[in-house]
């Protein structure tokens, strides 16, 4: 009788242990799935962060290039007034008509640059310009995107 009781209790204990193991196994499986989901989400976040950093770097690079072209354009403008011993005042006294035409052409070009900077569409001629004689010398980088600067 006692042996039978011990056996029954033993079997019941074994069965309970197996149930516990099964339950633990199910919990571990669920945990594993959650962890994998978490890792996948983290990977996605990291990829997005990488993309964002690249976009930020690209934007900064673009802005720096733009600012360096500004500097170049201003230097070019300064050169046009003061290249060598050029004195625009004396030139205007000596060749009034010619300088007046140059000044007016330059003013028109400068005004066109402002229009383009404010978002105006490029004309066909501006886009096609590749030679120095065809460009807007006030802002070639803005007005003539296909022009490659040469000396």
């Amino acid at each position, binding site marked *: 009788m006692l042996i039978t009781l011990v056996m029954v209790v033993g079997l019941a204990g074994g069965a309970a242990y197996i149930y516990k193991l099964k339950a633990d196994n199910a919990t571990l499986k669920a945990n594993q799935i959650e962890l994998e989901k978490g890792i996948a989400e983290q990977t996605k976040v990291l990829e*997005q962060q990488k*993309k*964002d950093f690249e*976009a*930020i770097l690209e*934007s900064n690079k*673009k*802005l720096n290039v*733009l*600012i360096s072209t*500004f500097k170049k*354009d*201003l230097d070019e*403008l*300064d050169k046009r*007034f*003061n290249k060598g011993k050029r*004195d*625009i*005042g004396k030139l*205007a*006294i000596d060749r*009034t008509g010619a*300088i*007046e035409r140059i*000044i*007016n052409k*330059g*003013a*028109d070009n*400068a*005004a066109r*640059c*402002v*229009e*383009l*900077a*404010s*978002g*105006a*569409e490029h004309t066909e001629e501006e886009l096609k310009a590749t030679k120095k004689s065809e460009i807007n010398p*006030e*802002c070639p980088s*803005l007005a003539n995107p296909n022009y490659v600067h040469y000396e």
Partner: protein
Amino acid sequence: MYTMNKILLIAMMILLAGCSVGEKRVKIFSLEEPRAKLNLPNPEALDLEKIKWIIITSENADEVFAKLEAEGIDPVLFGLTDKEFELLAKNFAQIRQKLQETNNLLEEYKKYYEETE
């Protein structure tokens, strides 16, 4: 009598179980609604008026004013020295560059926040 009790017991069980079906549970779920895009129209591009510069020297001044009068324009000019004209040209270039820089920044912000969403 015993059978009657059994039937009553089963009937009560069915009745009580029926209570558990009762009202449907309210389900609360949340949907993430993305923020509406600003989508302001791009500012209109400038269309500037054309202006004409006149160079006056001590030699051509009379001729210039006479020409203005002949054309029915008030014989008055607002003057700049050659150095001031140079400064005006540089100021104009700087304003244009600032405009270009600001527009570029706006484009980049738009691209960054609207293309990554």
